[in-house]
């Protein structure tokens, strides 16, 4: 991320060298191969993509009662929560595992030996994350609307809320994913090291279990992380005003959602800049 993209003319010998491809064009090209590799690797697709969809189908079939004297059904609540989890899976989990694997299997080392700027690698990753997250949300919404009475909001203000929660949430989760990609010691341990905390986070952030059934101290822990706030933001979009009664404070606290997610964007960026390594531990 700290890579200085050298202007083609800056280091040029006098003989006017051929122009190097732009970082943006290379980022686009990276996005193409990243996406192709992602969809061809069934493990990765199952881990980040199908997981929330399968869970929605299971939870939606088990719980169909209305909640706490509102007109909201449990499956509607799960749809909103799993959209949050799905966005985080597409960004945090996907990048955390994907970059750890890239570091281990020689992708990063090989790229470092070519004229591609480091920024193009990240542009490729970001575009791939956006595509996967977008597809994930679209499929979860389609299932929710078709099977579980989820109603798409007609109010553009709600869609504006969706847009900023999505953008802030995916940015914070992506940066966090890039930062934690350095934790696994090898590609083989990556999915365990990254997935375990993510599953725990989903359980304490109100994705699977409503907050009303969680002890206070667990809610305190989850309030520190972005997932709780992403889900809360998405619930405000898809459950509407009547759903606010189900929140702990009785409101969606959108101002706090924005503040916490923005803080994670800043903190995540700082973490990435401080900890990101192109080399694996093996390479020293």
């Amino acid at each position, binding site marked *: 991320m700290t890579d200085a993209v050298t202007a083609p003319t800056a*280091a040029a010998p006098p003989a006017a060298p051929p122009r190097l491809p732009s970082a943006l064009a*290379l980022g686009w090209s990276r996005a193409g191969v990243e996406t*192709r590799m992602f969809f*061809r690797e069934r493990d990765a697709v199952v881990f980040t993509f199908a997981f929330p969809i399968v869970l929605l189908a299971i939870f939606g079939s088990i719980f169909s009662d209305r909640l706490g004297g509102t007109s909201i059904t449990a499956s509607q609540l799960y749809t909103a929560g799993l959209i949050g989890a799905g966005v985080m899976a597409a960004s945090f989990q996907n990048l955390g595992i994907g970059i750890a694997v890239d570091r281990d299997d020689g992708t990063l080392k090989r790229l470092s030996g070519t*004229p591609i700027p480091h920024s193009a690698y990240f542009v490729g990753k970001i575009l791939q994350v956006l595509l996967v997250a977008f597809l994930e949300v679209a499929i979860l919404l389609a299932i929710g609307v078709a099977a579980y009475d989820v109603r798409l909001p007609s109010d553009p203000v709600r869609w504006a809320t969706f847009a900023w929660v999505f953008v802030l949430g995916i940015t914070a989760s992506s940066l966090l994913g890039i930062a934690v990609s350095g934790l696994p010691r090898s590609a083989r341990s990556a999915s365990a090291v990254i997935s375990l905390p993510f599953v725990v986070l989903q359980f304490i952030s109100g994705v699977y279990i409503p907050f009303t059934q969680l002890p206070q101290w667990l809610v305190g822990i989850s309030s520190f992380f972005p997932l709780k706030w992403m889900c809360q933001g998405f619930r405000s979009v898809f459950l509407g005003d009547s759903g606010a009664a189900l929140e702990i404070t009785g409101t969606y606290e959108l101002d706090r959602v924005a503040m916490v997610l923005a803080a994670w964007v800043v903190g995540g960026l700082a973490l990435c800049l401080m900890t990101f390594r192109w080399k694996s531990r093996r390479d020293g």
Partner: protein
Amino acid sequence: MTQTAVRVRGLTKRYGEVRAVDGIDLDIAAGEVFAILGPNGAGKSTTVEILEGYRKRDAGEVTVLGADPGHPTRQWRSRVGIVLQTSNDTAELTVRETVRHFAGYYPGARDPDEVIARVGLAEQAGKRIRQLSGGQRRRVDVALGVVGRPELLFLDEPTTGFDPEARRTFWELIEDLARDGTTIVLTTHYLDEAEALADRVAVIARGRIVAQDRPSTLGGRAAARATVGWLEDGERRHLETGTPTATILKLTGRFGGEVPELTVTRPSLEDVYMNLIAETTR
């Protein structure tokens, strides 16, 4: 006039207390095939990784294609090709997709299909890389190393794990590239490989260069005494001599013609190498 591709003076690299590279000098001319030999842990890989711009040095002067590899620019990277030791990336892409993608990184890339054919993978071009054999996977690495039309190519133990036939085919490819004027810096454990390919070799031991010469003259090999061997009275006889021709003449007279099972051997590159390593680690 020969231009210098690589110039190294007093290169030093420490890891903690260990001096992995302890004052190395090297000159590699443009167009030369240069092999670096040495046991594991001798500083060979560290030296090459510094030349490749992967590692920072502690001291010394290093110039590779006229620039300091300690501060690699994209322009410089586009003139250098690197074939790493092990990599497992792009397993889900086909050979053609991978080579095409990497060709896009370079301003004056070779035609990807031509490169694929040249490394002998034309038939596998549509195959996913995960389905290739180890030797075929290695040829993809070479294709990615040369697709950018590098002036200087680094090959790190390129034929480890190859069967003898695959190694010969690979050698032809390297000779082919050398004929085009590509400077090649090669590390290898196989002394026959160094002898077959390299114009000059350097032997690194304990972070220093202990010998640097043409393979045929390394370590005083050409001037070394020869061993004449023959069969006499059902027994194998050996004689070490500085004048093997005279010895054979004498033997010819003694046997009155053909000398049974006559051999004349000089120390192989491997013998010279083993001696050099033994001397430095003694």
